[in-house]
């Protein structure tokens, strides 16, 4: 591909923890031939595999791509997609696109704040629920839209959202956030 600045055969440094999940990050690194411009792609994979970007992971990526730590940290914090904190067991993302906004999506956010005490971008202290807002999920026809644990729900009201969330948190209607990926093989399948 382009600009093979740092082509290295297999100089990969293993992470001391021996966590097998690093293998998946390595796979993306290899796919992009350890090119520095692949940083964002690598961070995407890293976050997908680990759930969030902890310091050790950022250091690992920086070392593999031979980039300065501050550069990697600067990129990871620039983009909203990357999270440096662990996410809750369940997530609720409220779309705040224009169409959802004019259809009172803010009321749902206010409800979440009142009921669970969390603002967008926060996780409840018990680690059960993370609340986020999105710019536009591109489902404006169904406004207001939200995503609970990867399920897109349309034409929501504060009441209907609360019901769904209570059920999810109580474990009724069961499935957790993402279908729990137990093994590296599962994850490989998921990612590829």
């Amino acid at each position, binding site marked *: *591909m*382009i*600009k093979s600045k740092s082509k290295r055969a297999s100089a990969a440094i293993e992470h001391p923890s021996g966590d097998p999940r690093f293998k998946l990050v390595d796979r993306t690194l290899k796919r992009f031939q350890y090119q*520095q*411009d*692949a*940083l*964002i*792609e690598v*961070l*995407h994979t890293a976050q997908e595999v680990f759930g969030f970007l902890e310091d050790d992971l950022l250091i690992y990526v920086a070392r593999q791509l031979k980039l300065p730590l501050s550069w990697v940290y*600067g*990129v990871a914090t*620039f*983009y*909203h*997609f*990357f999270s440096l904190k662990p996410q809750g067991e369940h997530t609720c993302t409220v779309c*705040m*696109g*224009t*169409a959802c*906004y*004019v*259809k009172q999506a803010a009321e749902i956010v*206010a409800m979440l*704040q009142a009921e669970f005490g969390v*603002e*967008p971008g926060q996780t409840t202290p018990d680690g059960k629920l993370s609340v986020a807002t*999105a*710019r*536009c*999920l*591109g*489902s*404006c*026809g*169904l*406004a207001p*839209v939200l995503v609970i644990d990867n*399920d*897109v*729900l*349309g034409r929501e009201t504060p009441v209907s959202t609360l019901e769904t969330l209570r059920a999810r948190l109580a474990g009724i209607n069961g499935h957790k956030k993402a279908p729990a990926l137990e093994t590296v093989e599962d994850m490989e399948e998921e990612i590829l």
Partner: protein
Amino acid sequence: MNRSDLHALGERELQKQSEARCRLLCCGSTPCLSSGGTAVQEVFKGFLKENRDLKAEVAVVSTGCMGPCSRGPLVTVQQPGEEDVIYERVTSELAQEIFKKHVTDEATDRVETHILPNDIPFFTKQKKVVLANSGLIDPERLEDYVAHGGYLALGHALREMTPEEVCNEIINSGLRGRGGGGYPSGLKWNLVRRAKADKKYVIANGDEGDPGAYMDRTLMESDPHRVLEGMAIAGYAVGAEQGFIYVRGEYPIAAKRLEKAIRMAERRGLLGSRVMDTAFNFRIDIRIGAGAFVCGEETALMASIMGKRGQPVPRPPYPPSSGLWGYPTLINNVETFGSIAPIIDNGAEWFAGIGTAKSKGTKIFALAGQVENTGLIEVPMGLSLREIVFDIGGGVPDGRTFKAAQTGGPSGGCIPADYLDTPVDYESLRELGSIMGSGGLVVMDDTTSMPNVAKYFMEFCMDESCGKCVPCRVGTVQLYRILDRITAGTATRNDLTIMEELCTMMRETSLCGLGQSAPNPLLSTLRYFREEYEALINDDLHATNGRFTLATPSTRSAKEVL
């Protein structure tokens, strides 16, 4: 694969399709899938599983977007010799009835009420050029695209036209950038073509960030090959061998389909080395955005492709002379690339015959907000706003009245009812203080508070400011705070003056388009709905000073800045 192979492939597919007694097209776009479309497809597929003998004559196809998203899930039934029938709000139960009626020929009267007539203005006022295949083909099958004339334009360009001729064709078509700026695409292509360099790049900008807009997502999801074909033609025209599609991170389905499309096209020799047995090589790679609106700005987008913080750099130099890694780069919106193949197929004159004197062709809009029919529409340039909102959109629901239409998202403005008869083209919208933008069109009814709308967009710009230049980084925060005070009723007349001054200043001094256009929603609402702001201004000094005392509740919004 050369042109005759391509032709044969298309013929085979057409033959196969015509053999089917009944084709059930199910919309597989995000809005339909999330309103129950998945279950509908499962019902159809379940039937076929049960009746294996039907498999040869009945096809269930997951297609791209059919348009009227608020009426989803949508199903189109195609039968030879008959007009297509579109069903709206299809449930699992209804799917069974549809299957009975069209496949097993059982009588049922329960489906009639769900038929969406295809002679309603929603369809008749539209003109589908870019979205011609959307909703009719299976986006995951190259053959289906080829059967609908796909990759013929690429073959034609490669065999019959010089790069210069391709550029001229695009210039003559009058096509302008669909990402919002409206720069003549052909001129841009020519700049890149003329630039002398060892390498050149083509980038398709699919980082559709405007809230309330999903044209690009739909195009990438519904007809990915069309984008690839447009890019390949561009690559040939400008002399690039590498292309990138920058897909917004929120669009995983689009990315997956594009990736699959690239793989299939490469396998068939329509991309990659020696494209269609010519000397032209063209590879396309996907880059996934990571959530930054500013990356829609071309220099920020390139920074992001290069793995950096998505911060814009001052222009000039413009990407056509110095872009990715310093090489000449052509950046166009995916919708622009979507218009290329039809132009090559039908000729520049045909395309220039659609639209107005200065704005040619069609434009896709995402119609949303307080309007009866929300969804994705494609109309000829120059259609009036009234026709879009009232004829296609079906007007404002719940007996409310139309107040304004917001176009161009956070960089655009609000157009009031007085201007409903304005033709929608680049110049007219700009004159009204808005912009065409990428195509979000949100209708607001009389319950909407305009200062609130302005505040909403300012909060957006504040969150999305990259932080590089002072006017945008701090100006957006200051404007947001003033708007917050205005909506809370604690703003003074002086606040209003400072706010207007700051708007003008940011427009003229910000580094990139985001900061320069951030005041637009505010300025346009101020222009048309000034009385709403005035009504919220408090002229009693003592009362407004009350915001500093502890007794008064905080005027800070829940989302406190800093």
